[in-house]
């Protein structure tokens, strides 16, 4: 497998974003991570592989087990680059939603 992976491609998938949020709380093994998703175990493994390849996750060997944890440097890359832009739209759209809800109830 020699596909070029980048962080933005990696976070385009909702399951992978879910994995990142989950692992943010503490390091976990692939088994523990998979147990949190309804997705089949091999699919979760595939997602973990992609997240590891693009360095959003790092593997840490502890005896026989492999723990996954967040790589803060890569996570920051995403946060810095795209997050302010996303937040700007999120704020606008939140406002749009509440304005139109009022509008609806007035009609």
């Amino acid at each position, binding site marked *: 497998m020699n596909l070029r992976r980048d962080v933005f491609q990696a976070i385009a998938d909702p399951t992978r974003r879910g994995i990142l949020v989950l692992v943010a709380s503490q390091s976990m093994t692939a088994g523990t991570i998979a147990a949190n998703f309804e997705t089949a175990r091999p699919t979760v493994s595939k997602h973990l592989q992609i997240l590891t390849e693009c360095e959003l996750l790092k593997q840490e060997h502890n005896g026989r087990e492999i723990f996954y944890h967040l790589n803060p440097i890569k996570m920051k890359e995403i946060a810095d680059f795209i997050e302010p832009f996303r937040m700007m739209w999120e704020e606008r759209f939140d406002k*749009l939603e509440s304005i139109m809800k009022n509008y609806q109830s007035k009609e």
Partner: protein
Amino acid sequence: MIYKTQVTAEDGKQELWITREFDLPLFLLFKAFVEPEIVEQWMGTKVLKLKAQTHGSYQFETTDPMGNKHRFNGVIHGIVENQSIVRTFEMEKTGFPVQLEFLKFEEITEQTSQLTMQVVYKSVEDRDKMLKLPFAQGINMAHNRLQDIVKNLKY
């Protein structure tokens, strides 16, 4: 899903996608993009002109916290009620090239709807420069969950 608003900007592409699910019927979501007084409220801008029709145009003016005025304008290439808007967007006097925006409005249920925006830039560099503008000004970064996660990491 972590956020209601998703932004996807693949590396090396001159476009980005913004998607959002709204807890609103389709017609209300669409209305929010074509009624000047509603646009003013949620975009936080003054609408100098908004002719929401095919071959129409718009011009907005925002005042930043320093009191400087910034103008934005574009032409509305095509508009189909409750379905789509194709328009351009330009920030005046910034040197940024015009961008092209495809807005797609879809009904999910009677009470929910989805907006998909595809924004096409003149080049990959222009897109990346645009993303790096200080959009976050005045936004309370404490609400930024991703950054909180990064900050709270223990090493």
